[in-house]
């Protein structure tokens, strides 16, 4: 809804101090500021090579070819995939595809990154690589990161703020610590302690 892909059934959306009207020009202006990373990278990568795919958004911005190439180089370097510019998406692992899809958003230099389950189906090494990239982007590019997850670990250890949605309704908004200790949220999402107790039961 934030990026105008879905229509709200009721209410209004205000983003970057602008009321979302779903006007085409406004949507395109906003989408230049927002990067949306899909959970499945195969839903995002479509071009024959990674370099072409990453450059797609930058070309749509109407940038000069030299600037597009510069941005593609930078984005691929930011996600540690410089050597894969000429590779086909089919040759990449899941984690690499996810990073390539992220590079496709970075070329547009968004202010806000929305990540849909960014750590799903990744091993610890890949999660580490991804986290490192997100931290750098936050620190050096001053990007705001909004991510959705079912994994309490990332909420507890990485998020600054937490919003819990249940059946399309926001049931909590506040600090992760407060949220995770809230009885209603605990009942809804479960807790680490319960999980550990179950694992340790003989």
């Amino acid at each position: 809804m934030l990026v105008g892909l879905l229509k709200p059934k009721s209410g209004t959306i205000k983003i970057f101090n602008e009321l979302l009207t779903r006007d085409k020009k406004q949507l395109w202006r906003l989408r230049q500021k927002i990067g949306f990373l899909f959970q499945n990278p195969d839903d995002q990568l479509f071009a024959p090579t990674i370099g072409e795919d990453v450059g797609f958004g930058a070309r749509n911005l109407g940038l000069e070819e030299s600037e597009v190439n510069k941005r593609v180089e930078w984005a691929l370097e930011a996600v540690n995939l410089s050597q894969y510019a000429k590779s086909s998406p089919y040759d990449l692992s899941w984690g690499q595809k996810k990073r390539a899809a992220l590079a496709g958003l970075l070329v547009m230099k968004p202010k806000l990154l929305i990540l849909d389950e960014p750590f799903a189906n990744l091993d610890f090494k890949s999660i580490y690589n991804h986290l490192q990239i997100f931290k750098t982007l936050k620190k050096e590019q001053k990007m705001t990161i909004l991510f959705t997850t079912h994994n309490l670990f990332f909420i507890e250890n990485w998020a600054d703020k937490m919003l819990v949605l249940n059946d399309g309704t926001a049931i909590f908004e506040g600090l992760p610590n407060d949220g995770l200790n809230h009885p209603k949220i605990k009942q809804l999402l479960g807790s680490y302690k319960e999980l550990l107790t179950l694992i340790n039961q003989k």
Partner: protein
Amino acid sequence: MDIELPFKHEDEKNFLNKIHPLIRFILPFILVIPFLIINDVYLVITIIIFVIFFNLVSRLHLLKIFSKLKALIPFILLITIFVPFYIGNTVLFQLNLEIPINVYVEGLAYALTLFFRIIGAAFVFLTFLTSLTYSEFIEALTKLRAIPSFFVGSIIIMLHYIPILARSNKKVLEAQDLRGKNFTSYWQRLKTHGFIMGKNIVHNMERSEMLYESLKMRGFSGKITFSSKKVKLADILIVMMFVFIMISFIYFINLEQIYMGVLQLLV
């Protein structure tokens, strides 16, 4: 990848890469159109030999092309096999079934030419497609102004999903196999295939919608632009050379005489 698109791998480079992709895309049309218009079996055979030679010189995967071509043979046979029964006047022989069926000389000759023409056309197109990488193929399509950009966009998205869907389809079938799909009755298996197909259609629609949304997020407005090379004078010369070769085969060289001469020598 289980189902491969008929393109070269992106890293696989040879001297052909120096020829502009658009030219490599146009060349099969130059070779195929004449023998589809002119009913001359010698011309078809000559072009097939010429393309085999081209395959060998360009070090393309001739065996891979043949294996892809093999899959087309039943369809081509289906088109041609009945032709000798109803075209022509000169009876070659008669099949004495309950109703006598004539096999005509003209029909047989026409069926053979048709078979060679279709298989030859498929062979030429497959050869030139395998000389392109996927990105070169798209570059050729986008450069060809006769094709509308929305159509090119649709082709790109479609091609992107073929291997992905084939893989997911295979996984579903494997999962069904593990749960004993092959030990049930024929009808049950048919029903299972029906379910898989139905699931795939819905799944594919969802995925294409997701891809479209992701493209829209990155400014897609119906036209897909990639970086592209320019067509050089050398590329145009190659097209001219192919046109010249074709004109020579059609007008200046008596192919029938050459083949008969070779046959006489062999016999």
